[in-house]
């Protein structure tokens, strides 16, 4: 069973790197979102530094929605989902593995890129560290909640927009605590730990809930 799960992870990582650059596009999208903000609000660095953490969080949130709809749909279209369902492994674990592969190829690059993009927005080192830490803890929750939307849209030919609409409302708590923790770190009015722990708790819940709900959705929808 371990071998099967490892094979799924390795295959999804390989596919992500070979097809369309994998997580690279997500990072480019993230960079593009961050780049257009100063064009809209003006180039003053103090203003950008103030809204920077929120911009980074929204950019990462939108970037992590990209490609979600393909997690299961691509396997559904070419018949690989049938193969996965006949493996001697629970579907929940398969979904978790696919979520993990998706996070490694899209979520993790966003976390790595965040400090560099923060420099563009003139963030202080403290804010940079806080944003990166919150994204590191928060993006798994985004991916694993997205997994549910991906499973719900599995059989739809153009599920991309639908997945975004389904998933965005679910991610609001993550956004709230992610930005709250960053603001706490910058202003020091509230202890950083409180919202950060809540964010970590959300991620852990998402890690469990996401694959279970995604597996249930696939079983129901693929009738």
């Amino acid at each position, binding site marked *: 069973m371990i071998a099967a799960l490892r094979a799924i992870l390795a295959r999804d990582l390989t596919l992500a790197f070979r097809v369309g650059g994998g997580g690279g596009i997500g990072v*480019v999208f993230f960079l593009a979102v961050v780049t257009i903000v100063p064009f809209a609000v003006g180039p*003053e660095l103090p203003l950008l530094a103030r809204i920077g953490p929120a911009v980074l969080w929204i950019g990462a949130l939108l970037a992590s929605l990209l490609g979600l709809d393909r997690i299961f749909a691509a396997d559904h279209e070419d018949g690989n989902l049938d193969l996965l369902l006949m493996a001697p492994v629970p579907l929940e674990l398969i979904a978790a593995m696919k979520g993990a592969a998706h996070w490694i190829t899209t979520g993790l690059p966003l976390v790595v890129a965040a400090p560099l993009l923060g420099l563009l927005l003139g963030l202080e080192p403290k804010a940079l560290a806080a944003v990166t830490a919150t994204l590191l803890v928060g993006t798994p929750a985004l991916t694993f909640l997205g997994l549910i939307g991906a499973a719900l849209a599995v059989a739809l030919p153009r599920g991309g927009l639908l997945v975004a609409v389904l998933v965005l409302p679910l991610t609001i708590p993550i956004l709230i605590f992610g930005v709250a923790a960053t603001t706490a770190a910058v202003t020091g009015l509230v202890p950083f730990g409180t919202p950060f722990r809540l964010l970590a708790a959300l991620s852990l819940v998402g890690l469990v809930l996401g694959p279970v709900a995604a597996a249930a959705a696939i079983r129901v929808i693929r009738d």
Partner: protein
Amino acid sequence: MALLDLANPHRFLAFARALVPALALIAAVLLVLGLVLGFRAPPDYQQGETVRIMFIHVPAAWIALGAYTLMAISALGTLVWRHPLADVSAKAAAPIGAAFSLICLLTGALWGRPTWGTYWVWDARLTSVLVLFLVYLGILALWRAIEDPGQAARAVAILTLVGFVNVPIVKFSVDWWNTLHQPASVFRIGGPTIHPVLLTPLLVTAAGFAALFLALHLGAMRNEILRRRVRALRMLAAAGAEAR
């Protein structure tokens, strides 16, 4: 048949085989010379020692722009004359040009911090280089997204030409936008006003970068031709295995 034409630009390969090592050698000599001259030049009276960053920053910007111009010409070659080598040239130049614009951005940030006290300013030049970098990344993504090389080349050629128009527009519009908000800190290094002691290492490094770019470009073009040959042969082999 076009597939075999592509798989067989023999003369280009011979040409590249002779030229790549020579260009690499020239690049190495010039870059070492530029490095030595650059570090022996006296510090600038205003910028101090950090002016040494200019010796890589400015040539990198030139090469990034030059590479894009080359890609735009190649794009015309693809769309107008439908020359297969133009496709190859455009594809090979994209990652190298992106690398030079990344160097320009990184060194610019590292220069900006000691000079202006911040890694980044949304000033006209910086912003337009950042947009250029984004356009490069978009082109790279499009190359990877389309499987058939000929089709990819035509799609990318259109994107390249649009980007070629867009980048100067961004620069001019941001100039206007920026003077509106932040008139003072517009960053300039005037080419002709620069002192010869600083100009020489700059030009030597630029020549070294240019030679390096050409060596890498020819090398990448050769790789791309080989990749297409592999693809063509594999398609023949797959068809052959079917016929067997």
